């Protein structure tokens, strides 16, 4: 369809405007993380510029610098700012906890899901559709329904507040997505490839391991990224199943205390937590739609 120059420009402006509106909360968030305390809480109006950017919020959350020390550096005038409970704002352990759990659950998910997906893509057996539907139905389980009994189960098994426990639960939630998505990638590889390898004398396992698996490397990477991001951002299960291990989203929520909401630290840690996800998601743009629809739509 031909469109006039004016229409084209109007469309460009509108498109940029819409995307800018969607970017605003992230920008405002990142901006708040480098604001001094007074600029965040300015009641006279939003502060976009006109403050001295400070790395203090990052120093407290990412480097573990004590907020008292920072108050001392700034002299007496900032001393009044220091209030709130004794909760620790040093979040390095949380970032490590989140990373261990996300990497662990991604690895476990991929291990289990790759085997199942290959089988579901390549073999025929009775009840195959029911099995697929059973796996899919796990995706529809509300986390609240899983977590309440799992709390008791983990208490009995000694898995409460452990990395293993959260890794298992995050894998459980990620498995349906991973199986269905990987199956769609295996389905893309023609069956003739397997048959040729089998005729050449390879065993079924060798065919899988040496021939087909390398052909779906891209798909496995995309699946891994989506599993990682899910685990990295998950909140409810981590909140219920841990007390001393605090994943980043749960850690952030503890910065809201009864006496004060530490917006500086919240935004600094929040910004640090979303940057890895942004990088990952931009890397797998090509497979994103397939991932979001559990493999049912291909681009």
């Amino acid at each position: 369809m031909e469109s006039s120059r004016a229409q084209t420009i109007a469309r460009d402006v509108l498109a940029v405007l819409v995307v800018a509106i969607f970017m605003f909360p992230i920008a405002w968030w990142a901006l708040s993380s480098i604001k001094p305390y007074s600029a965040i809480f300015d009641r006279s109006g939003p502060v976009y510029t006109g403050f001295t950017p400070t790395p203090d919020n990052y120093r407290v959350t990412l480097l573990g610098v004590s907020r008292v020390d920072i108050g001392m550096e700034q002299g007496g005038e900032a001393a009044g700012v220091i209030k709130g409970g004794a909760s620790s704002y040093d979040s390095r352990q949380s970032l490590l906890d989140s990373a261990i759990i996300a990497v662990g659950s991604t690895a476990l998910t991929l291990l289990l899901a790759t085997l199942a997906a290959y089988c579901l893509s390549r073999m025929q057996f009775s009840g195959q559709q029911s099995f697929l539907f059973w796996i899919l139905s796990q995706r529809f389980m509300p986390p609240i329904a899983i977590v309440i009994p799992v709390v008791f189960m983990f208490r009995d098994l000694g898995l409460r507040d452990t990395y293993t426990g959260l890794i298992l639960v995050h894998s459980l939630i990620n498995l349906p997505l991973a199986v269905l998505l990987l199956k769609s990638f295996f389905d893309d590889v023609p069956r003739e490839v397997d048959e040729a390898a089998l005729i050449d004398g390879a065993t079924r396992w060798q065919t899988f391991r040496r021939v087909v698996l390398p052909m779906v490397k891209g798909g496995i990477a995309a699946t891994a990224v989506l599993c990682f991001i899910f685990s990295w951002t998950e909140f409810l299960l981590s909140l219920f199943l841990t007390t001393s291990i605090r994943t980043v989203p749960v850690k952030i929520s503890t910065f809201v205390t009864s006496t004060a909401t530490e917006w500086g630290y919240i935004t600094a840690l929040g910004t640090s937590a979303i940057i890895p996800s942004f990088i990952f998601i931009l890397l797998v743009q090509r497979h994103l739609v397939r991932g979001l629809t559990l493999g049912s739509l291909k681009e």
Partner: protein
Amino acid sequence: MSSAILTRPTSRWALPRFMTAEHPFPWLAPITVMLLVFGIYPLAYSVWLSFHKRNVVSRQLDFAGLHQWTRAFSDARMWHSLETTLIYTFVALAVQLALGILIALLLDTDRKGYGVLRALMTLPLVVPPAVTGMMFLLMQDGSFGVLSFYLYALDLISPAQPILTQPGTALAAILLADIWQWTPFMVLIILAGLRALPKEPFEAAAIDGANGIQTFLRLTLPMLRKVIAVAVLIRGVDLFRIYDYVYIITAGGPGTATETLSFYAGRIYFTGDFPYAATLSLIVLVVLIVVSNLFVRLFKVRF
């Protein structure tokens, strides 16, 4: 599989056939064990819990028959949270779908620069929902929130009644967070659907002199049916079990005005009444199973 007829050198000892890689069993056993132990067992335990009652004196669970279930069905707060959940789900779905379609149409062009815009649109999807909640809490704070400031300036909201303190606007505040985070989901899926459409019908329509709106309603929308059904199903399920935004933004308040069913179950859990919390969470599950099954059948969604 036909491969079974091939003879291969057998190993030193022969495994039963179902243990070999030719059989689905070893491929599916690990995931099945995982799903049974951490998926089915907890579910069974939940059902068991829902037929029991906490004995305050002995700190034991006593069998209580349908007590928890009749309690749930006569619990006005449960019905209110169900209603809130349904309103939340339908409003969010409608807005996200409408905005999703409009923005997808807007961004669906091969011109330079739009690729960047499309990539930027995916960013909200990977923000941890707890952080999204915080973002909107920061922006909607009654005294220093940037959004509150502009709403006051435009006289849309009175500073005497901050967004998060009024039942109606508090729910809208949570919805706004959800809409911000998940409209991009709809945009991406519908964009993929648009890209996959065949060109010919549109060329024919243009020759026949159909205008943009006619083409959209008569051609584009019906052809996107399957894509939209998948997106609505996945999104609808996630919306109905909403927890994070409520927990962070309003904690169910003011009062119980923005309490969703999942959140109510969580709140009961934290009071220590596990049997009732399990019952409420099972209600979420049952509604989801029934509605999603109906939906899958009605719209013939395939995975």
